[in-house]
């Protein structure tokens, strides 16, 4: 029999727990609410790169799972983050994407905050005397902030473990690339896609979908890719080189352009649970982060980084190298987006009930091990069974 009747079609394979993912994981409202509570409100979330706030009083607004945040570099040069909401009536406090300011005044009634989050002005304070409302009690909600290799991480949980404990050695393969010389972001794009947030992560964690990428079929001549699992749902890949001249009229990447510790032709990636991938192609870095708006709608942010102090020609080349694969008009990114959206459509409509992540090939590039490790962590944090998320696997 080559096709299945409904009963057979709905029947999930009896694989080990992390080898099959229920479709509910991608579209169920209750699952999504639990993800917000147990993952995005608990985990360290890669939010931006420190070069986006180079000067004192620079600020940057962003969202984690629709929670508005502001990151600001204070007078002491430290980065701090706050929920970007006025303590008075709950209006969004800062509405610019970035800027430089020593204080933030809410447009609505002018309650004002400094860069340490302290409330420094409540107009007509005498009116609040009866209730005892004082500036000292109405600071912004601070969010834990740590910086590692230039990457700015935030955590909404005041009691979370330190970032280093969360990451383990996940970023080790990129220590030299990210930390060897100061980097800076030259490319930023924020796109909303019609897909579950994990579906985008899967396009990075799945290392064998080269077939759908014409560009990768042409350029990835060295297929000795290996994957490595890092505790906590993280992972990395390495050991792969590209022949860029195999595509269109592209040129080789000069060794002189290589990032510290990298070969100009080498691809090396780190994937961080729950929402980030740092992808390097010898001369240029891409940072992907995802942030869900709902189970079917996701913000994808892509950043491109080069070396701070690049000459004009070096920067031109890095921008070109970045855009070849990863810009919104790149030859790689749209296919990944298409895959995420087409899978989402199937799960949303109930026309797919599970997906199979059962390839076991000894952690080669053909293995689903990184996906399984990622989802094992998902299961650990949500307390849900991956194959049947209606069953709670442990007391949370």
């Amino acid at each position, binding site marked *: 029999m080559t096709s299945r009747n409904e009963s057979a079609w709905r029947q999930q394979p009896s694989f080990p727990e992390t080898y099959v993912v229920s479709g509910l994981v991608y579209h169920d409202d209750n699952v999504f609410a639990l993800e917000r509570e147990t993952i995005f409100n608990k985990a360290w979330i890669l939010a931006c790169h420190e070069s986006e706030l180079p000067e004192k009083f620079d600020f940057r607004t962003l969202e984690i799972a629709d929670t508005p945040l502001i990151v600001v570099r204070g007078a002491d040069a430290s980065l701090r983050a706050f929920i970007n909401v006025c303590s008075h009536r709950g209006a969004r406090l800062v509405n610019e994407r970035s800027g430089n300011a020593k204080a933030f005044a809410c447009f609505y009634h002018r309650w004002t905050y400094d860069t340490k989050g302290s409330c420094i002005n409540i107009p007509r304070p005498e009116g609040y005397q009866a209730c005892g409302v004082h500036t000292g009690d109405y600071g912004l909600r601070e969010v834990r902030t740590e910086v590692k290799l230039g990457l700015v991480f935030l955590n909404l949980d005041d009691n979370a473990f330190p970032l280093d404990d969360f990451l383990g050695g996940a970023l080790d393969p990129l220590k030299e690339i990210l930390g060897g010389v100061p980097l800076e972001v*030259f*490319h930023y794009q924020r796109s909303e*896609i019609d897909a579950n947030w994990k579906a985008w992560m899967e396009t990075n964690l799945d290392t064998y979908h080269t077939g759908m990428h014409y560009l990768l079929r042409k350029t990835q001549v060295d297929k000795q890719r290996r994957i490595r699992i890092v505790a906590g749902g993280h992972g990395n890949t390495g050991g792969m080189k590209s022949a860029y001249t195999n595509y*269109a*009229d592209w040129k080789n990447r000069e060794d002189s352009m290589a990032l510290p510790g990298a070969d100009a032709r080498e691809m090396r990636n780190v994937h961080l649970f729950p929402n980030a991938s740092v992808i390097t192609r010898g001369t240029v870095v891409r940072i992907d982060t995802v942030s869900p708006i709902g189970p079917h709608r996701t913000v994808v942010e892509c950043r491109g980084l080069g070396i701070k102090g690049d000459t004009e020609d070096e920067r031109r080349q890095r921008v070109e190298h970045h855009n070849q694969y990863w*810009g919104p008009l790149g*030859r790689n990114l*749209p296919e990944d*987006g*298409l895959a995420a959206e087409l899978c989402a459509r199937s799960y949303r409509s109930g026309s797919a009930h599970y997906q199979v992540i059962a390839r076991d090939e000894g952690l080669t590039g053909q293995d689903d091990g990184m996906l399984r490790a990622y989802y094992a962590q998902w299961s650990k944090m949500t307390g849900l069974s991956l194959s049947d998320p209606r069953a709670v696997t442990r007391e949370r």
Partner: protein
Amino acid sequence: MSSSIDERKICEVVYRGCLALDAEDFDGFMGFCSSQFKYRITVYSPDLRKEMIWLSHDYVGIKAMLESVPQHFKRLGTLKRHVSVYLIEQDAGAPVAKVTSSFLVTSTDPEGRSRLFCAGTYFDEVSIDGGVPMLTSRQAHLETRDLGIGTHIPL
């Protein structure tokens, strides 16, 4: 020189080039571009407070890129450009006219639903030094920064 006829021809280069891109007739589009053609897509990022380049090619580069498009799995459906030429500036003796046009691109999915894909301005240069007017450069400056899953086809 009758400027009205020249302006009509200049507009035709812009409009017909867009019709060719709409039809994914890339050879046809390249037929409106001179061998010196340079193409860029730019956008300002308020997040970075910087101008960004999202695509930059010369004639050979854009031609090679377009030739590879059919090999890619690309976004489903079609793109359609709506263009209005706002300004045509011709300095006396200059070999090119500077043409400023507003453009909107709509995306129509396989089910027939259309939505706005992006908005921007073309800053074109069109040769006017004899012969058939040709595009010598195009900067497509985007207002829209969210292109969803992106596109393989120039705007």
